[in-house]
């Protein structure tokens, strides 16, 4: 019996081997996949102009390099062969300037895996061209040959593969978003603003002739999945840097990992405290601790909050939120009477409310996503209960979906945000909105979309200031000394080495009735967190 068992394993694995060999061998297939996915990414964009950003463009130019890499990874020591075979496989399919690149790669491998070790000197290839077909091998290793038909303002790249993930005409950037999972229905918006900014950078000519090749992954708001994706991006895709990851559950564990691998992460969400401990992570939004400080102070001073109950998602940031709130409210002679952790499958909101009622709570603060928060509010409404100062919560609530979900029951809810609120309508906000909605018109502008946008802006600016010599170390050093970066969305951002708490500003918004709808309206801010640690 068992002998048969071993044989069946045998057969299945054999079949699997054949199938995977058939697929793995096809570089063209991989290139096609790549292009296709890039195109999908670009479909949201209202591609402006003939030479403007289009996913297919970036994908086509990136494809041969990857195909070459895929082949040479397997072949190990013969990058030349790998690159040339990829050229022949990919150029008819992709129809771009790939042939030129691959021929240069024969002399000096321009593949991702080789690029890191070759240190960036040597072969150059043509600059970024948009959909321009060049005959195979004709341009050769001519450095900086300008290609006709390139996008306006696109300089030719001189610099080549200066670091991992950087080629003559592209920079690989990793982005991890929340596209599924418990907060998936609104979590995807978190990515879009940052991605819109990156696309805008590409459309306006890229980074000194290099296009940003943004690789996107999903973490389902789960650090495990996020780290899987991060490892894949770093170890297999060989990205240059991470940009604007707005998922706290991934950004937290990613911080030590980024330090270990010396990979810059520009524009982290900053919600979790661990992110401020990393040398290579640059958070742009404020921490949940700062939110708790400011909320507690505001509610104690303006609303006279004395007896507070907190319900929080049971993760380190949630616990830090409770602790921070408690510290500040005590300064105003208030207290956190009790706190209760919540999980997605079993929020326990009913008993939380019952307990709040019996404990004579005047303020309920939350560290929740809009989903559980909605449950909380609905449960409270069903029990005909509302604390004196209504509900309040961390920036996780500051979505337009929250008032939509809670309806009239959520009226009076105060949420923290780290940037100007939507109804403030500052020029900076309008500029931000214009860029984002050009690519993603239906986005729900929240704390995190603005954070992502700022992160992407900083990333783009820093990269541009590096010139052609793009390396991780130089990028880190540049951002480390960033001073007073104009975000236009409230606080300006400054980093200094060892001090990455760039944003300590909180705005508060409240759900108020406007007509028959409910919306978040500005009520206070900017409040600068005087209790924040200085690291």
């Amino acid at each position: 019996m068992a002998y048969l068992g071993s044989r069946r394993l045998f057969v299945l694995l054999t079949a699997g081997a054949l199938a995977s060999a058939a697929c793995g061998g096809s570089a063209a297939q991989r290139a096609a996949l790549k292009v296709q996915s890039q195109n999908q990414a670009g479909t949201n964009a209202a591609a402006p102009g003939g030479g403007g950003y289009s996913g297919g463009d970036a994908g086509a130019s990136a494809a041969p390099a990857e195909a070459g890499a895929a082949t040479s990874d397997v072949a190990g020591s013969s990058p030349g062969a790998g690159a040339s075979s990829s050229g022949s496989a990919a150029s008819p399919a992709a129809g771009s300037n790939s042939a030129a690149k691959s021929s240069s790669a024969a002399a000096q491998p321009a593949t991702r895996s080789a690029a890191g070790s070759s240190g960036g000197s040597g072969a150059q290839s043509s600059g970024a061209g948009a959909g321009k077909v060049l005959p195979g091998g004709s341009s050769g290793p001519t450095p900086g040959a300008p290609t006709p038909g390139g996008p306006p303002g696109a300089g030719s790249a001189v610099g080549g593969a200066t670091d991992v993930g950087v080629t003559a005409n592209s920079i690989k950037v990793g982005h991890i978003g929340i596209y599924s999972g418990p907060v998936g229905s609104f979590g995807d918006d978190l990515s879009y603003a940052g991605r819109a900014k990156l696309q805008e950078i590409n459309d306006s000519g890229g980074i000194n002739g290099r296009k940003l090749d943004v690789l996107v992954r999903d973490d389902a708001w789960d650090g495990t999945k996020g780290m899987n994706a991060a490892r894949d991006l770093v170890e297999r895709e060989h990205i240059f840097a991470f940009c604007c990851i707005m998922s706290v559950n991934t950004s937290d564990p990613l911080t030590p990992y980024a330090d270990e691998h010396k990979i810059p992460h520009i524009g982290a969400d900053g919600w979790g405290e661990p992110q401020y401990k990393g040398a290579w992570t640059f958070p742009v939004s404020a921490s949940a601790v700062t939110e708790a400080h400011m909320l507690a102070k505001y509610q104690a001073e303006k609303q006279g909050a004395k007896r507070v109950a907190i319900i929080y998602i049971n993760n380190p940031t949630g616990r830090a939120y409770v602790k921070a709130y408690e510290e500040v409210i005590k300064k105003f002679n208030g207290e956190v009477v009790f706190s209760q952790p919540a999980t997605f499958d079993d929020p326990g909101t009913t008993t939380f409310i019952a307990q709040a009622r019996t404990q004579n709570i005047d303020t309920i603060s939350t560290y929740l996503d809009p989903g559980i928060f909605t449950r909380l509010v609905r449960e409270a409404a069903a029990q005909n209960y509302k604390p004196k100062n209504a509900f309040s919560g961390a920036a996780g609530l500051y979505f337009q979906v929250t008032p939509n979900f809670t309806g009239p029951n959520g009226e009076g809810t105060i949420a923290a945000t780290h940037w100007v609120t939507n109804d403030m309508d500052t020029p900076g906000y309008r500029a931000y909105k214009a860029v984002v909605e050009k690519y993603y018109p239906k986005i729900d502008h929240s704390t995190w979309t603005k954070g992502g946008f700022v992160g992407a802006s900083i990333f783009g600016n820093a990269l541009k200031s590096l010139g052609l010599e793009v390396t991780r170390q130089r990028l880190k050093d540049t951002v480390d000394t960033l001073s007073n970066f104009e975000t236009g969305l409230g606080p300006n951002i400054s980093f200094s080495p060892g001090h990455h708490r760039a944003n300590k500003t909180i705005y508060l918004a409240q759900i108020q009735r406007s007509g028959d709808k409910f919306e978040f309206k500005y009520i206070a801010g900017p409040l600068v967190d005087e209790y924040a640690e200085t690291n």
Partner: protein
Amino acid sequence: MTKLIQTLIIGLEYGCVYSLIAMGMVLVYRTTGVLNIAHGGIGVLAGFIAWDLNTLRGWPYFPAIGAGILVAVAAGLLFERFIVRRLAAPALATVATLALFLLLQGLVFVVPWWGNTWGQVFNSPFANKQVAIPGADYSVSWDQLILFGNVLLFFAGLYFILRRTRVGLAMRAVSDDPTAARLMGIRQKLVAPVVWGLAFGLSGLTTMLLAPILLLDNTSLTAFTLKALTVTFVGGLISLPLTVLGAITLSMLEVSTQLYLPNVKGLSDAWPFLILIVVLVARFARGTKALEDTAVAPA
């Protein structure tokens, strides 16, 4: 006193949810020998269809939930006709329900316009209507009352069906002794579709009743289902009254632990296991070696 009444009400509320789910599972198990793991999944399907019709296509509320429940019943009939009937053993059918469960839970992601959805608001027309409980400083929403009423209705209805109707008689006969029932000529073909349709419909109904109170999502009903499954043990997967009793006991214990002993972390989640041990010890003390052991059943 106020707190006690509140505790009792909340306990009853969750007890209703657990019992509704648990009764559906016991019904299927005792008549077909299949553990219907898909119970939660069917609810997700029905719930999302109703939500789709109501919210996206503008159907009125009641036709929409009616359609959702009908889809669930139809799914039950189809599942019985094309899958359960083709499988030789209840064990295999149990696995089929597992597969169905995975399939349905994944379906929410596959349908593009439902996609990536965790929670959806699916209000009933009775939203924001409450009844104050005198002397308890507490009120209960209409949705919760409807849930409670449905549990009573279903319990009574099931009792009536089992005691007074031909199908019920056949169901009882099958559950008491499937072999004998078969030999006596009771047709499983008559009983099984009724059972599966009823159970799937019940699952759909459960979702419809829960969605206005919580949110409509694809995981929390599963979480409830797994918890409810642990209380079916109290009734030995056979007895409906004992199952309901177990469900209410569990929820009462959970709620009172959460309200009275909020600092004893984790105790409220340990109750299913603790109850299980108590039940086992009780059964063992009564001298029954195994809950169900046909190997030693008296001739």
